[in-house]
């Protein structure tokens, strides 16, 4: 054991990132929680924000303040340019051919619902099928379940293989068949960090003429993404999980599809001409952005993207993989700890779900909290997944660019304490 341990410890030199410098960018990392230096391992829930992002939001309020796409005055014009500039940045970040394919919503959750109301409600009828997977976050599960119920369509579910934590694709051709109109799949599980093979699922969906919705809420924040390679019809994600502000989500869509779709929210700024008897809607993306958007949030999101690009998504991914393998190895050395998810760590992002023998995840969470460590415990908005795993919940540690091996050590130490209390 000690040999392995030494090898990995030496690996600290191999950080793909300048973590010390990065940590300086995040003011909250100077905090203590319950009297201990704050260790934030709940990145799967939301990421911390660097100073530049906080400043960009505050800067909008301090220096511009104006609403967008409406005023003829200078501050409004500048605010509009910054808002739309983020759209261009997001398009670049995910390799979208045209910024107009990027729709701002309030969350990944709203983005999925936009597809459900704007496309599916109109196009899916009784007898049709919708296919999801058992490892989805509720955000990419419940909207489809509700839609199936509303339309009389049938919901099918690609199952988990509980033995190895991967998706069981053996029945794919039956689950996605000529009745299937839409296939929804996550690109990275928020429970285990598992990145299922979306390519064969998308290929099969295309073969039967079904639309594809990819949940990138975890994936986009942790990997280099190219929507052209992905070749899905829709991709959804949230700014707050990628160092951006809360209250901003993204819907990326295929251009023609977005153009054909009905609007979702109706109101100001999405119409060209309104009379009491008829209304002409604007083109994309305006058609989908009714009302005053989260202007400060979108502007802050632009800074988050600059920040992440400056560091490099591949380097971030490598860093997380490094922490993940270190953590997996350390946890394996603790008697009574069970880790979930595929053992092939190359198929995973930096998320580690585990349980400590007799201790309920909630108890583990409380003990870690007392040690200053923030993790998520419970069902992770993925009830079907947990049900398939057959566990009452897990404790989840999830890593991001600012986390260190020392923080993993503190996690491990605290987990040992859980083990002792519940021995």
């Amino acid at each position, binding site marked *: 054991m000690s040999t392995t341990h030494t090898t990995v410890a030496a690996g600290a030199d191999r950080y793909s990132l300048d973590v010390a410098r990065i940590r300086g960018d995040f003011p909250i990392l100077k905090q203590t929680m319950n009297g201990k230096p704050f260790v934030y391992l709940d990145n799967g829930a939301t990421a911390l924000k660097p100073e530049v992002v906080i400043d960009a939001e505050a800067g909008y309020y301090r220096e511009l303040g104006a609403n967008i796409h409406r005023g003829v005055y200078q501050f409004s014009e500048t605010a509009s340019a910054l808002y739309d500039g983020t759209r261009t940045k997001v398009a670049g970040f995910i390799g979208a051919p045209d910024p107009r394919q990027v729709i701002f919503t309030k969350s990944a959750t709203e983005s999925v619902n936009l597809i459900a109301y704007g496309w599916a409600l109109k196009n899916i009828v009784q007898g049709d099928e919708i296919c999801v997977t058992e490892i989805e976050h509720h955000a990419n599960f419940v909207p489809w379940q509700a839609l199936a119920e509303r339309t009389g369509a049938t919901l099918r579910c690609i199952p988990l293989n509980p033995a190895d934590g991967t998706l069981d694709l053996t029945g794919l051709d039956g689950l996605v068949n000529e009745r299937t109109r839409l296939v929804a799949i996550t690109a990275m599980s928020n429970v285990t960090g598992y990145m299922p093979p979306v390519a064969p699922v998308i290929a099969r969906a295309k073969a039967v003429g079904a639309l594809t919705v990819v949940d990138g809420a975890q994936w986009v924040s942790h990997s280099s993404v190219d929507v052209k390679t992905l070749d899905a019809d829709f991709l959804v994600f949230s700014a707050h999980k990628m160092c951006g502000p809360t209250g901003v989500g993204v819907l990326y869509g295929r251009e023609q599809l977005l153009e054909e779709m009905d609007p979702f929210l109706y109101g100001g700024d999405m119409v060209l001409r309104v009379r009491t008897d008829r209304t002409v809607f604007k083109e994309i993306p305006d058609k989908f952005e009714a009302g005053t958007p989260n202007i400060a949030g979108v502007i802050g999101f632009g800074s988050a993207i600059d920040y992440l690009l400056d560091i490099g998504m591949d380097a971030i991914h490598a860093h997380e993989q490094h922490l993940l393998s270190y953590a997996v190895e350390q946890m394996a050395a603790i008697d009574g700890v069970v880790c979930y998810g595929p053992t092939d760590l190359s198929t995973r992002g930096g998320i580690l779900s585990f349980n400590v023998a*007799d*201790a*309920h*995840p*909630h*108890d583990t969470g*409380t*003990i870690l909290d*007392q040690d200053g460590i923030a993790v998520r*415990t*419970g*069902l992770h908005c993925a009830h079907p997944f*947990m049900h398939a795993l057959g566990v*009452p*919940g897990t404790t989840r540690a999830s890593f991001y660019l600012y986390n260190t091996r020392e923080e993993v050590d503190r996690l491990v130490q605290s987990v040992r304490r859980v083990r002792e*209390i*519940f021995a």
Partner: protein
Amino acid sequence: MSLEDDIYKEIILDNYRARKNRVRLTDADLQSEGANPSCGDDVELFVKLNGETIETVTYEGIGCSICCASANLLCESLRGRSLAEAHEIIQRYRGMLLEDEEPDFPDEISDLEAMQGVKHYPVRIKCALLAWNTVRDMLEQVSSA
């Protein structure tokens, strides 16, 4: 204030691990489920009545140590009590956790005082109340019926 003194003391861990009351009653007069979706606690309570007396209470389900320990203590404390006594005990238990009242339980169920430390962990109070709120609602139905 240490975890082991406050909430992870022997008496709570013992009640967490106890199996005796953790059983489905097939002939229950009352039966009801309670859940805390944020943490996944999910317990079902079974009550067998004999006139105005609670003959037995059991529970089943999944939950954290605080949730299960409090459920087990509930079963131990309410067994054999009249509805009125049960109501009184439930009130005191809630008062101890929610209103900072000094606990003052009959000697034979003074183990309930062990739950007092949960007060210092606001997130966990709802764990300590789940079974108790569920049973309160169940018994209220009988009283008002």
